[in-house]
């Protein structure tokens, strides 16, 4: 059990080296991609545009040669979330308008509620794969370069890169402790909720101890290297922006402008009036 979860966490957060166009994009552009495209995907008002967005993201994921393992893991996590969300949208949300799809005892399932859920699902799958794309194609030290390119203070870029680097370390610590306690006979599956919580303390205490020790070691290490928050910093590791990076920024901004215009109803977001087939009945 612990091994599988450890694998999931490590799989979610690890850079996986590959050769593709997307890997060679400037890290600042990849960071902007996650931020800007997440916003433009979330404000998408129609199913048609949401399907287009998901298609764009899946195309990028395919072109980037994102490892299938990362996509599987994200599909699992986001799939579970959307399954629970589906139950809540379908059975626990009153039907206020539109036709009723089915009735199961006291539970009434409305078409509009299902379509609302579908829109959320399309958006969340797109954003989730976008996040996976960013995480597996960006090195931690490149994130620092990206933040620096976006004019973030040195301490911010240093701290963010260090946190990402430490995620894997803490994750390994956590599951090493869980495995060690399990091998001593501690069964996390037995007992009521309070008993299980008390058992988790046997994981939490060593985790804090190990982390405090690491904090002191890290503090000494960065102090020994002359760390200071102020002053101008120089960096031998730099990544120049290229034409393709600027082209990608233009693409992201254009995408955002189109989605904002759709959200403001400056054009028909269902695209029905432009001859596009109505994939989903009007909500």
């Amino acid at each position, binding site marked *: 059990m612990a091994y599988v*979860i450890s694998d*999931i*966490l490590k799989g*979610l957060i690890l850079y996986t080296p590959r050769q593709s166009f997307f890997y060679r994009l400037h890290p600042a552009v990849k960071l902007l991609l*996650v931020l800007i495209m*997440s*916003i433009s995907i*979330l404000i998408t008002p129609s199913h048609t545009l949401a399907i287009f967005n998901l298609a764009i993201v899946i195309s990028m994921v395919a072109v980037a040669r994102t490892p299938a393992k990362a996509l599987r893991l*994200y599909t699992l*996590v*986001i799939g579970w*979330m959307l399954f*629970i*969300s589906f139950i*809540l*949208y379908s059975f*626990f*949300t*009153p039907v206020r308008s539109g036709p009723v799809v089915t009735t199961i005892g006291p539970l009434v399932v409305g078409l509009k*509620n299902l379509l609302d859920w579908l*829109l*959320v699902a399309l*958006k*969340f799958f797109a*954003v*989730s794969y976008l*996040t*996976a794309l960013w*995480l597996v194609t960006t090195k931690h030290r490149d994130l620092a370069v990206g933040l620096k390119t976006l004019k973030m203070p040195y*301490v911010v870029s240093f*701290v963010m890169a260090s*946190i990402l680097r*430490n*995620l894997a*370390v*803490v994750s390994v610590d*956590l599951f090493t402790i869980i495995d060690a306690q399990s091998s001593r006979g501690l069964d996390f599956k037995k007992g009521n*909720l*309070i008993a*299980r*919580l*008390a058992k*988790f*303390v046997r994981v*939490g*205490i060593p985790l*804090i101890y190990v*982390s*405090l020790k*690491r*904090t*002191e070691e*890290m*503090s*000494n290490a*960065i*102090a020994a290297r002359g*760390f*200071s*928050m102020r002053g101008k910093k120089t960096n031998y590791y730099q990544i120049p922006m290229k034409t393709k990076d600027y082209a990608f920024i233009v693409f992201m901004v254009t995408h955002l402008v189109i989605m904002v215009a759709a959200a403001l109803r400056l054009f028909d977001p269902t695209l029905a009036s432009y001859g596009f087939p109505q994939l989903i009945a009007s909500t």
Partner: protein
Amino acid sequence: MTSEARVVRKKSPATLVSLFIVSAAITAVLGAFGSIVFPFLAPISSFYPGVAFQVAFGVWFGLIGAIAGGWLGPFIGIILTGTSAPIAAAVAVGDFFQAFIPMLAFRAGRFDPRLKTSKDWVGHIVFNVILAQAVGATIGTGSLAAGGVFPWDVFPIAWLGWFVSNIVVVGVITTILFKVFSDYLMKTALYVEGYI
């Protein structure tokens, strides 16, 4: 704090930055762990061990613990579970208050994290276990409903799920962490007595 004489060492920027990094990394991993292993309505989990550490970090490490352990760590943890960055940022504001309110209350009310007197226990239960979790649940689940993860009609169910699981976790785990670590930590340079 009590009137006992303690050696308070000056903290270097390196110590503060290291505290920030480790606090955020721990709560990020535990946040993702809770959402994946004990899912309720991701990123809300039925058992969220990270909140116990958020509260403890806020009380022990002041604003650094509240921001790193309360906001940045959960923000990264939520992103790792596949939720979008804007919604993760909004949900993490709820987590921030779960660390910020205990941090503020323990300093303003001069409660001792070693929980030695009945006053300390009352402060811990009222502010850490109940109030901070109620505020966090309201902001966190409200952000998810506003983001469309679930409809507003099921807000009370989600709120209750967040609140009840958190008060059990904080009531049990944070209490034990305080009793085990506070005394040791207060003798080291890592403990932040003031706000920063």
